[in-house]
């Protein structure tokens, strides 16, 4: 199975994603420059974290018009899988691949921390190797991670099981204390209506190596392998 990892000017988690796919999952990955127009036969596209185009204007606003986004959008329209992490999530929202927007954290400051998310839906191509209700520890590193959307969209996301990850506290409860950035309903990750585009602010690709602690992010990559390769 081949993963295509897009590097925008300012991406800084692209090699972490490569490490997760190649060294930990044992699958193939190709690095795709944002000016390319060829996904090189990738089965899954990863839009990685970073500060694409300096986050100028709004995070993701300029990256969504990078040349390769035309092919990424066509891939998603065909039902191809896209994993959009952190800045990638911001880009996916700006590109209309996912609803809503990521705005300045509620507390104003940039947050670099390890947080907890609960798996709200384990019946997706990205989460089938998790148990629903499992609480995962993952790092976050963002200034604009507060998920917002008009109420009818939030209600639809909740009602359709498209809220895949939710911030929770140490007891596994979705409290204000457990919500680092003030996201609506503690939403940390959502999936497209067709189930093929997942966006999340936490960084699964940074917690895949047991050397660095519990590899809570690895099952996301294993889920994709199980579903896409099947």
């Amino acid at each position, binding site marked *: 199975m081949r993963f295509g990892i897009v590097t925008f000017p300012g991406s800084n988690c692209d090699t972490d994603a490569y490490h997760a796919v190649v060294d930990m999952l044992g699958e193939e990955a190709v690095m795709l420059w944002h000016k390319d127009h060829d996904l090189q036969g990738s089965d899954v596209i990863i839009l990685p974290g970073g500060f694409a185009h300096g986050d100028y204007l709004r995070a993701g606003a300029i990256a969504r018009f990078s040349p390769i986004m035309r092919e990424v959008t066509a891939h998603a329209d065909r039902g191809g899988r896209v994993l959009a992490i952190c800045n990638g999530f911001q880009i996916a929202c700006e590109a209309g691949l996912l609803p809503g927007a990521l705005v300045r954290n509620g507390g104003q400051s940039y947050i670099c921390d390890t947080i907890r998310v609960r798996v709200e839906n384990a019946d997706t191509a990205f989460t089938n190797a998790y148990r629903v209700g499992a609480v995962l520890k993952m790092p976050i590193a963002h200034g604009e991670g507060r998920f*917002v959307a008009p109420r009818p969209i939030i209600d639809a996301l909740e009602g359709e099981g498209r809220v895949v990850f939710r911030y929770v506290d140490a007891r596994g409860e979705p409290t204000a204390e457990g919500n680092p950035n003030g996201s609506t309903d503690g939403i940390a990750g959502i999936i497209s209506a067709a189930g093929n585009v997942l966006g999340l602010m936490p960084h699964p690709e940074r917690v895949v190596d047991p050397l660095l602690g519990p590899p809570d992010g690895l099952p996301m990559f294993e889920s994709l392998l199980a579903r896409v390769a099947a």
Partner: protein
Amino acid sequence: MKYRVAVHILPREGILDPQGHAVADALHTLGFNGVQDVRVGRHVVVDTDAETPDAAREAVRGMCGRLLANPVIEDFEIASVARA
């Protein structure tokens, strides 16, 4: 003809604006107790070729729709159109 179009882009009413809150708090600390609400946005100035002022205004409106503003979270308002 060259026109200079200025546009205000602000967080939508109803969307929590933490920057605006922080500035309002600071203004209260400074004794500006009449301050009710502050929203912080962007002011973008575009110099563009266009046939008429209306055409310049429409062009910038289109730029806002596609790139300069995000309709999910922001409102925009053309502040001025002038010969540049």
